[in-house]
């Protein structure tokens, strides 16, 4: 778009998403995309993942509907690569840390690159590829290229984590590069968030709290931890190009993997709304002490006011402590006269009779429930397990039928609003 359009209002630079729908996947001689079929060279993929911190890496596909389970799921990434125009992908990791979100981006829809295996302090996440629980995770309906690994005996766990993250992102980019010459199935124009209201619709901010609790519980923005930062207004299209990358492996049910940040559900829902307009995304750290939580929350509310946003939707990552980051923000927003909605998971015990929140808001009233974290569900026996041979949480064979809390199902209670899970009063 030239920016010289005088026929209507001001035009804004934006991002063009070139979407390639992947129908079928396989391992083969070379990495290529032909007619919706993605072929990946395992040898090339393993070369991309190779690092002195990893003694061994391997890749394999698992697809929706298979009698399969992925255990010890770490991060997941949607394959994306930059086409014509400005900027790089995964800035700070794969491309230099420069503002992202302009030009064109190729997206392999229906595919994820998934790391799975043991890391210390990672709480075990499980993905079901079939059965009732498949619908609870975004990875239950994607073709997943699962990366399994053995750490080098002399590598620190921090180095293993760093190597995995870099490898996963590079591999995701390489897969999407197979689509650079292909005709997309859909071309989606994503205008940048406008600086002023475009019509009568209210401008709603997506306030996105990122977990910042140190190694293995950290989220990166342009390659650096968000810890210690103040609330920052970014364009939603920066997320599309991977400005936010997850290194957070706690609370699998309450996790926001890179894949979800790339497809920010609240930003997407606001874009899809005819009655509201996406104002912008405000990213915030989740500090570990109360005074910092209060400061960050007050500043996030003030930033909304300064930007003239009419309302805000606030999301979190992680367990009970992160409830406070949402509660403080929705209360701070309401105090400034900005209507606010908070997304919370309920932590109501296995019976669903205990108090659902650790730190509820005191002024704001509007809350969305993404389901009870503690309620258990039964998973059937599976033929194939990836990511490990055991489910450590229950000390059980990874193939067996097993009862697990929703908390262990990867993204089941997606704090960023991906899922359909919620709670109702039993009658």
């Amino acid at each position, binding site marked *: 778009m030239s920016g010289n359009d005088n026929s209507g209002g001001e035009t804004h630079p934006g991002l063009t998403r070139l979407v390639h729908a992947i129908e079928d996947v396989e391992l083969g001689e070379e990495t290529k995309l032909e007619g919706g079929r993605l072929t990946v060279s395992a040898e090339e993929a393993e070369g991309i993942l190779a690092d002195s911190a990893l003694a061994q890496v391997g890749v394999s596909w698992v697809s929706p509907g298979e009698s399969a389970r992925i255990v010890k799921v770490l991060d997941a990434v949607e394959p994306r690569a930059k086409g014509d125009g400005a900027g790089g992908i995964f800035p700070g990791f794969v491309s230099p840390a420069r503002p992202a979100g302009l030009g064109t981006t190729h997206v392999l829809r229906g595919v994820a690159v998934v790391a799975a295996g043991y890391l210390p*302090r990672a*709480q075990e996440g499980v993905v079901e590829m079939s059965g009732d629980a498949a619908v609870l995770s975004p990875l239950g309906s994607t073709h997943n290229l699962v990366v399994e690994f053995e750490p080098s005996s002399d590598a620190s766990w921090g180095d293993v984590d760093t190597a995995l993250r870099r490898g996963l992102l590079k591999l995701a980019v390489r897969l999407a590069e197979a689509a650079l010459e292909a005709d997309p199935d859909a071309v989606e124009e994503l205008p940048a968030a406008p600086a002023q209201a475009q019509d009568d619709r*209210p401008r*709603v901010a997506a306030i996105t709290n990122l977990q910042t*609790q140190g190694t293995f519980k950290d989220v990166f923005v342009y390659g650096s931890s968000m810890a210690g930062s103040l609330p920052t207004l970014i364009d939603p299209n920066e997320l599309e190009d991977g400005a936010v990358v997850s290194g957070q492996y*706690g*609370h699998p049910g309450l996790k926001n993997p890179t894949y979800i940040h790339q497809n920010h*559900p*609240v930003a997407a*829902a*606001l874009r*899809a*709304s005819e*009655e*509201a307009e996406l104002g912008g995304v405000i990213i915030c750290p989740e500090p570990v002490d109360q005074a910092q939580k209060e400061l960050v929350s007050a500043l996030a509310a003030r930033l909304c006011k300064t930007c003239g946003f*009419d*309302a*805000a939707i606030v999301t979190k990552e992680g*367990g*009970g*402590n992160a409830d406070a980051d949402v509660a403080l923000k929705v209360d701070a927003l309401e105090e400034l006269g900005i*209507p606010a*909605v908070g*997304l*919370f998971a309920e*932590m*109501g*015990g296995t*019976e*669903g*009779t*205990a*108090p659902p*929140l*650790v730190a*509820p*808001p005191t002024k704001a*009233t*509007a*809350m*969305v*429930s993404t*389901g*009870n974290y*503690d*309620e258990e569900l039964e998973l059937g026996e599976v033929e194939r397990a990836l990511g490990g041979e055991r489910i450590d949480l229950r000390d059980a064979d990874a193939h067996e039928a097993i009862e697990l*809390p*929703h*908390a262990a199902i990867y993204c089941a209670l*997606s704090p960023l*609003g*991906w*899922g*359909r*899970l*919620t*709670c*109702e*009063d*039993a009658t």
Partner: protein
Amino acid sequence: MRIVHYINQYFAGVGGEEEAGRGPELREESVGPGKRLQTLIGDEHEIVATVFCGDDYAAGTAEAAEEILSLADEADPELIVAGPAFTSGRYGVACSAVVAAAHERGLKAIASMHEDNPGLQDAGVVPVVESGQTARRMKGTLERVAAAVQKLAAGEQIGEEEGRISRPRRVNVLADAPAAARAVDLVLARLGGDTERTELAPPDFDQVMPAGPVEDLSEASLALVTEGGLVPAGNPDKLESSRATLWLRYSLDGRDSLPEGEFESVDGGFSTVAADEDPHRMVPLDVARELEHEGAIGGLHPEYLVTTGNGTAVAASKHFGVEWAVELHKAKVQAAILSAT
């Protein structure tokens, strides 16, 4: 219907705190508040027996609820009434455990306590009707319980109108739309001035009044307790890293310190590097022993109590709190330092 009534040792008239360790006993008649309750219920239903138990025993013994129900079985009950427990924590925990276990056995059950009672959350799906804060509100409370018992016996639901204070059970379901789309609908409603609509009602947390200061610390026994997941290296008893369902106790006898490498924190909610390097950051045994040697404190409780406070349900936490209080109370501990993370 044949009713068995559960009460504590105090309301049974057998004694106060000195009888708190007493195990359960059965009387084949209504006892204490049960006499008034029987009058209010009328002739249609009969309190055929009363089981009573000491508060420490009932709240601090894992099998207590089963023992109480086994005794109640001798009277062949159809309905169990427990309480009213008012704000008494151990009594409330016991009442809830008894009615929850009765429900498991397929019996009708109802309890009564104040909404601040820590036992409230443990009743599960069993209705709990409101009591006053203290026994001074016994009369009105028993009238409410009697009315609820009549409805329950008739197969009717006990709701807010009957004074129900226990929350209805929340169950997971799939909504038609993703949470993000529902959030947009909700924010539009909120922009339209709607302050009622929500998918989730906030819980009312009780405010805990701290106990008064210890009068003479040099005479007092001090306990060290933590929710920071500090366990012997290798976590031999498998304390959970989050969503704890248990707590543990470890001996401090003969120890002056907790050396690096012998203890570790398994808590999944914070970076444990500093705690693992110096376990005293979680359980300050080193300085506590110094204070003990100096005579600044009377003595140190010979065990530390530990659980993990990461994603742990409030109900479980309250339960652990009551059990810790019972344990420390029995051991005549007058002060505790709870390190939180």
